[in-house]
């Protein structure tokens, strides 16, 4: 994934390439100068608070609405009104749009399978596979209106992946799911990405569980992409030093002095048995532990505190909102 002025990566054609995308509705600018690309087999988290422009971005990327400025390229082909329908055949979209409540689970899925050109046999096979993964097999002949909110949410994801799309858009895919169902769904998506090199774009502001899925991230704030890139690189850029929490059995103050002497960076953890510190190099931690042991300070644990996508999201939003 790359951000800033859009450019085709050196190796291979990106699945999605947004170049200086803008969209205005009257005088209101919903999205402004958005540029990023997502390569095959990557999961891109499009994050942002409500009204940040996520839905407008997805609608532009799928050809539902026409950008006021800029271009979209999908699978190496510039998206136009003429080729949008053909390109959509390679895309699956799950949004907060409703399913057909007076139809059964089977009817909802078979309609979608036929719309995407699956044969009757393939529809039946994929329906069985998807419902098994989503633990909905026993509800195949239930009316969708009789399903719980979580079941409908799973089914809407199942409908989007039924035709095994090359590019998948998901909108808050785990919203309303219990933790176990959310984990199963994330595992299934991870497997799709690994085995079929599916490109996934996830719009969300609920990061829990999706952090491990997203390899790339873009954070939208008021229609502008304020941060975009590889998650690991962005985290390293935001927090260049490695953070640890040391727990000692003895005198915390003495331990803090040793930490300050060896690694030179101590933070106030606010806990009387913990010492938080940062290092440039993980090797410094071994030296620290040796010194603590030498000074007869009992070391209970030294735990790395790696920052997460969640931390990055809130740090970015806070920075943007700061005057």
């Amino acid at each position, binding site marked *: 994934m790359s951000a800033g002025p859009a450019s085709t990566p050196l190796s291979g054609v990106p699945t999605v390439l947004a170049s200086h995308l803008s969209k205005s509705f009257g005088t209101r600018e919903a999205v402004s100068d958005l540029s990023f690309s997502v390569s095959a087999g990557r999961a891109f988290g499009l994050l942002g608070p409500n009204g940040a422009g996520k839905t407008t971005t997805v609608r532009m990327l799928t050809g539902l609405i026409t950008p006021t400025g800029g271009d979209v390229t999908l699978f190496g082909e510039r998206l136009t009104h003429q080729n949008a329908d053909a390109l959509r055949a390679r895309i699956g979209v799950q949004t907060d749009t409703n399913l057909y409540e007076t139809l059964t689970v089977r009817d909802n899925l078979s309609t979608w399978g036929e*719309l*995407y050109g699956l044969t009757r046999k393939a529809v039946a096979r994929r329906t069985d596979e998807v419902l098994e993964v989503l633990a909905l097999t026993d509800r195949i002949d239930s009316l969708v209106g009789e399903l719980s909110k979580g079941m409908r949410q799973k089914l809407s994801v199942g409908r989007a992946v039924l035709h095994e799309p090359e590019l998948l858009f998901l909108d808050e895919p785990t919203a309303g799911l219990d933790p176990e169902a959310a984990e199963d769904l994330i595992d299934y998506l991870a497997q799709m990405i690994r085995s079929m090199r599916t490109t996934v774009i996830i719009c969300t502001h609920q990061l829990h569980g999706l952090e491990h899925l997203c390899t790339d991230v873009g954070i939208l704030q008021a229609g502008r992409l304020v941060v975009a890139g590889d998650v690991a690189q962005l985290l390293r850029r935001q927090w260049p030093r490695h953070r640890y929490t040391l727990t000692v059995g003895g005198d915390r103050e003495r331990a803090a002095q040793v930490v300050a002497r060896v690694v030179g960076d101590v933070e106030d953890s606010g806990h009387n048995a913990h010492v938080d510190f940062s290092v440039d190099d993980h090797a410094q931690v071994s030296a620290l532990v040796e010194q603590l042991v030498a000074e007869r300070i009992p070391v209970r644990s030294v735990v790395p505190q790696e920052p997460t996508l969640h931390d990055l999201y809130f740090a970015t939003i806070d920075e943007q909102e700061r005057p």
Partner: protein
Amino acid sequence: MINRRRMWAVMRKDWRELARNKQAVTPLVIVPLLFVVALPLAVILLGDNAALTSSVGGLQAFLDHLPRGLIPGDLSERQAVVYAVLIYFMAPLFLIIPVMIASITASSSFVGEKERRTIEGLLYTPLTDRELVLAKILVSVVPSVLLVWTSFAIYTAIVDLIAAPRLGGVFFPTWTWVVIVVVLAPLVGFLATCLIVAVSGRSSTMQDAQGAALLVVLPVIGMVVSQATGLLLFDITVALTASAAVLVVDVGVYLAVVGRFRRERIVTRL
């Protein structure tokens, strides 16, 4: 290039939904039955009874304006009234049936999808604008045509089995009726549906679409009323000319509806 399988998927889905909607299906069946069973039976059994002619709107005016030359000379006054009503007065009612059905099914299938927030899902699929619009039109036109033809078969049976023996032999259907039912009624149904779909793209509730559709189908109703009041009587020439004219309008309106269809307008007005 139109993908018929994709269109069929949309049509089958809509029909399944419609079949489960008893509120929508009931009037689709009952109203045509009233037209083709109750009304002709009343006319056949009561003839020129004053109570009947005064209770059916426009019937007296129709009888007053009817040229006598259109009625076979060997029929009595009472038989002439029955013959005139069955052959001329009833004909335009078969044009109301597809318009009525279209106003229920078309508004339900298109604006209904907007109301139920299911339309955006369809717009993300590979369905082309032409396929989506044509599928939504056919979803309404096909059942309306089938209902008109079924109604016509029932009407023919009633007229031939009950009226014909009283009027001296089988006289129905006439060629004018065949043209009206087989050609003109489907074309009128297509036109009404196209117009409702066109209005539906801008409406956000079924009531809006149906209300606007009523205004749009006024010319059709005007044609029906003019026939019923004896101002314009359908003979084979009028029926064929009207069919040709409606066909031209159908093509023009359909192309305009497809040409003006914008996914953006739909998703941004949800």
